[in-house]
């Protein structure tokens, strides 16, 4: 009790986590504007991603974070370049400012204590409701030397979909970034030849964005008509 009194002026207790809300959805079953009387139309659901972690992260993650912070200082990258660190399901994610995306990758690759020499993949995620950071770019880096994996993530708003290219640091990011551009419209500044890779050159739109419809036609089976997948009842 006395311990509680001594910290009573702190409104948010230390160590409390702030939920990372990316979207708020209303209604149910994907039904819109049908004069719903069931009450399900009033359902409000927030989509929250795992909250940023606070130290200690556990496992080898603390050593890695220490090493990274020290290396960032040496490379002249401000500590605020790391927006947050998420440790979830045994994986660590560094969410960084997009201006420093490539610089962070260079530090992670070059420092002997980090040595993430291998870029497994670069891809995108479109969080349509996450205003100001709709487009996420996710890079999975692997250190064969230390047998570790991390995730380097950054965000860009839909209105300014630019992210520094990782190709100067990891040449393998070339096709990954072309694919991400093709599917999400994320422009990787500094990419040697950012063109479509999967879709035809004259394709309009970026198909894996959440505001791009799946398309499809109803299917008839034994007299019944089954609507296309994106018009079927949705539970989430």
């Amino acid at each position, binding site marked *: 009790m006395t311990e509680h009194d001594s910290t009573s002026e702190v409104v948010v207790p230390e160590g409390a986590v702030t939920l990372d809300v990316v979207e708020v959805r209303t209604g149910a079953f994907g039904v819109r504007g049908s004069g719903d009387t069931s009450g399900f139309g009033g359902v409000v659901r927030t989509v929250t991603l795992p909250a940023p972690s606070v130290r200690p992260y556990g496992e080898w993650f603390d050593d890695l974070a220490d090493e990274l912070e020290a290396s960032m200082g040496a490379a002249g990258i401000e500590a605020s370049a790391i927006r947050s660190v998420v440790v979830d399901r045994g994986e660590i994610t560094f969410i960084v400012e997009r201006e420093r995306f490539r610089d962070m990758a260079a530090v992670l690759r070059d420092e002997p204590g980090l040595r993430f020499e291998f870029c497994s993949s670069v891809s995108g995620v479109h969080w349509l409701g996450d205003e100001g950071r709709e487009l996420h770019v996710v890079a999975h880096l692997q250190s064969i030397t230390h047998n570790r*994996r991390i995730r380097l993530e950054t965000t860009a708003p839909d209105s300014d979909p630019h992210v520094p290219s990782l190709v100067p640091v990891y040449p393998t990011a070339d096709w990954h970034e072309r694919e991400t551009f093709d599917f999400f419209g994320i422009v990787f500044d500094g990419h040697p030849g950012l063109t479509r890779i999967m879709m035809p050159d004259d394709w309009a739109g970026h198909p894996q964005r959440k505001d791009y419809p799946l398309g499809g036609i109803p299917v008839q089976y034994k007299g019944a008509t089954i609507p296309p997948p994106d018009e079927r009842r949705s539970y989430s």
Partner: protein
Amino acid sequence: MTTTPDDTTGTWPGTSAAEEVLDDDFDDDFDDIDELSHDDYASAYETTEGKVYTVGGGDWDTIEAPPEGEQERLVVNMGPQHPSTHGVLRIILELDGETVTQTRCTIGYLHTGIEKNLEYRSWTQGTTFVTRMDYLAPFFNETAYCLGVEKLLGITDQIPERASVLRVMMMELNRVSSHLVCLATGGMELGALTAMIFGFRERETILDLFEMITGLRMNHAYVRPGGLKEDIPAGSEQTIREQVALVRSRLKDTANLLVDNSIWMGRTVDVGYLDLTGCIAMGVTGPPLRATGLPHDLRKSQPYCGYETYEFNVATQTTCDAYGRFLIRLQELEESLNIVDQCLDRLRPGPVMVEDKRIAWPAQLSIGSDGQGNSLEHIRQIMGTSMESLIHHFKLVTEGFEVPAGQVYQAIESPRGELGAHIVSDGGTRPYRVHFRDPSFVNLQSVPAMTEGSFLSDVVAAVASVDPVMGGVDR
């Protein structure tokens, strides 16, 4: 005898007034189109069904003039319908005589939007999509996806032992069938047709096993989040043992055909050279990376499905060339068959699906007179005796289970290298985003590095040694 326009009227002989009107309209249309779109590569015209493009060829000289001092620039378009490009891969080659000066790979001809489609199905239905990505290694796609979903669900520790052993067994059998196709088609592309016949013959025995166990030769959807679709049929252990022994004995045939064969070596030794630095920079994994001497195998370095408990060696070579990759695949065939034997030895009766009934797929299958189908016993139970079972069955099949929000990256060692599944959940009953890091996609990027400066015929050998599967590349 050809007709020509009449000089005096400027119309074609016999043109009626009505036809003249039509002609005028037609000309007008063409004028519009010229203004609407002008494409150097494809002329376009409007039809009632929309705009139609006619893609022309042989216009490379109009795109860029050859540099000063160069006599001519020869651009050869290889594929996408070429028998030696290992699938619908298009390679644009710039040649100086027989020497390749530039290689550009064009992909996307087999893009089917699997990742987008996944976002509109339940988590369990996702397996049926991912199995179609790299169609020569379906069990690897399924397992990578399911391990990722299980990690998101936090049930990795609850997967029954028998399910994990069977997953390993199916993956290793699949590695054998996949490597056999690589040797078969690779051999065919270099003219070794007997190797092709042998490779497909051996593969057929493995496909028979798949058919016996899953009901299908490909696109199995056998591995499901939480375990397996069903157990292996009773008594199939013996069949698997016999077939494995048969394949092992026959592997020598292929090996005898190609190892130390002077023609084969002439086509593959020092061809498609890519050293360790190049592999790491280009993200190349699998046999091409191990051919540089680095024993990097995720089954050893980041084990999953209990691979740390199996005994096997990581095959390496130090030649960095197509021949080294071929030798590695031969050795991996042996190792995989040994792992299958170990799996059979440790198979113990037990469940093949997690106990949690909120995740475990409720459908029970049995073998009927017409092959595999629903278990009548199960249907009788849910339809006749237990309303609760019926409701749970219905909810789980139509709605599916919810997966807590978050993201994971699960990588496994596929026959072609690191197969990674980046799976994002928003907490709903469908994947929010699934991205596959397919090893074929990444390894194919290194083809220019392997082939520029080599002979045209070496391009075929280099691509074959990478073993890209276009279903995985384009997804």
